[in-house]
């Protein structure tokens, strides 16, 4: 069995978990094993249909009132107990804030190897082979893990969602026992940013700005451009972030976020190696820069050499027109 942890936020399974489930389903198919989804929470069995809808054969619901709020310790305990009983060959997570927080704890509890932030998974001679970027994408490492089970986190926006399927399956509800005092840290609140904003790691389109924008007020140009697309986010170079023009959660690059949207538009960004490290796996890269020699043009699929203040508004109008058609 390949089991996949289903992350829930606001009472819904996250899309990146369904992507991980879809990938598990494809690999499990090659290995001739079952795919299962694992929900953890206070009472979560109701969410099972979404997991069946992406091909889970069975859904495990690990429940305890203590698990209603996320805690890495409580969730790790529940998942390790599940692995001990169900003995999956592998356990996948989405490489989200929660997945990255949780998976290493589960791995340590089980004494199992963990492949972080995978961008490709293959089956070679019956065994799972993981591929992940290292040195911020300047190299790709492929490897197998010696332990059973094998744990992996899968980079969001990288593995395609499988086709939706109809029909259900077996829901296995388990009540998890959590000893008193086992959970010494807990989430006491969530502060949402502007809820209309999509996080750069989850966006289909990213419009990023750098020092070429000259000041914080001009990020409005990029927000206008991003607003043309359904799931777009605004990104930034470190120089723009360090100048205080935009929050650091928008920073793309080696010491910022690693992103792989369908379309990445770099505006007034020179393309320093640390910036390229975070975005060069984007599917299509567009650069707007007045300097024809800027290194960003070496990785761009399409580029416009020109003044961004003239180009960006026209680009927005043109896109609006075409997308409306």
């Amino acid at each position, binding site marked *: 069995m390949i089991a996949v942890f289903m992350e829930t936020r606001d009472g819904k399974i996250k899309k990146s978990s369904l992507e991980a489930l879809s990938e598990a389903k494809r690999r499990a198919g090659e290995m001739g094993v079952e795919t299962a989804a694992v929900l953890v929470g206070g009472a979560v069995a109701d969410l099972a249909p979404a997991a069946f809808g992406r091909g889970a054969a069975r859904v495990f619901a690990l429940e305890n009132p203590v698990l209603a709020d996320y805690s890495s310790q409580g969730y790790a305990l529940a998942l390790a107990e599940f692995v001990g009983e169900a003995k999956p060959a592998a356990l996948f997570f989405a490489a*989200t804030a929660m997945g990255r927080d949780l998976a290493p704890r589960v791995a340590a509890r089980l004494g199992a190897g963990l492949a972080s932030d995978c961008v490709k998974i293959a089956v070679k001679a019956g065994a799972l082979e993981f591929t992940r970027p290292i040195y911020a994408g300047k190299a790709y490492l492929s490897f197998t893990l010696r332990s059973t089970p094998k744990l992996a986190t899968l980079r969001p926006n990288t593995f395609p969602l499988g086709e939706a399927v109809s029909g259900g399956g077996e829901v296995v509800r388990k009540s998890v026992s959590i000893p008193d005092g086992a959970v010494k840290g807990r989430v006491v*609140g969530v502060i949402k940013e502007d809820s209309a904003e999509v996080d750069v790691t989850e966006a289909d389109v990213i419009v990023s700005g750098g020092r070429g924008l000259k000041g914080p007020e001009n990020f409005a140009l990029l927000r206008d451009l991003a607003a043309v697309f359904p799931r777009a986010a605004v990104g930034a170079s470190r120089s723009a972030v360090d100048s205080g023009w935009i929050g650091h959660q928008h920073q793309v690059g080696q010491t910022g976020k690693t992103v792989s949207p369908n379309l990445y538009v770099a505006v007034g960004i020179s393309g320093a190696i640390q910036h390229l490290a975070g975005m060069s796996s984007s599917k299509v890269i567009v650069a707007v820069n007045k300097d024809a020699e800027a290194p960003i043009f070496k990785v761009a699929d399409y580029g416009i*050499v020109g003044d961004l203040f003239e180009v960006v508004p026209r680009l927005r109008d043109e896109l609006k027109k075409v*997308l409306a058609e």
Partner: protein
Amino acid sequence: MNILVCVKRVPDTESRIRIRHETKSIVEDGLNFVISPYDEYAVEEALKLREAKGGMVRVVSVGKDEAVAVLRKCLAMGADEVFLVKDNSPETYDGLRTARIIARAVERKFAGTDLLLFGKQSVGADNSQVPAMVAELLGLPQATVVTKLEVEGASATALREIEGGMERVVLSLPAVVTAQKGLNEPRYETLKGIMAAKKKDIPVVKLEELGLGPDELASQVEVTGLDVPAQRQAGKILRGDPAETARELVRLLRDEAKVI
């Protein structure tokens, strides 16, 4: 308050990575090694907490003799004591092995630590594994990817980054916290600090002293391939009138790249 900071020596972020295919490893000659950037935030946070609350800041690195250079930097920034846990094995890209070494070192050498600070990830391995694994091995709570930390008595409140917002986490101490950019601005070393750091002997903990078995020291990771990413094809560069280039770009995105 006793704080332990874990730091790793890594190639700086400017590095061009070359690969030695025979050994499936990167070519280390010619690379400039530094303290992993996120670990610097962890050191700074430890120093700030010591300034506010008193206590000791100790720093440990697991690695080869060369890691002494990053430990000296930590001394020059103001750490009280630094330790090298000497491990001659090449980079394994396996977090569990390193975590087991650190967890055991904490039990045997750094008992009485109230707070363990780490970087959110080591630049290079980019694993984000070691800190949460250490936390689990020691039965401690954790807050990862933290941009704000407050310690009050025996508990800490941390703000951690999540998609589209922040999560507030309350931890009872001792606990593990990992530093994200934004937590603070690391100080520069002073000349006096650098001079003093040069003179200090750096204690070395031998791996054998930690009593880990061969199973625990084996890497989980068996490398099957290491490659640089395929070069992107040279793109189409448009010049001229802004309105025309914008129109042409949109046409290409729709008809050729098919992303819109």
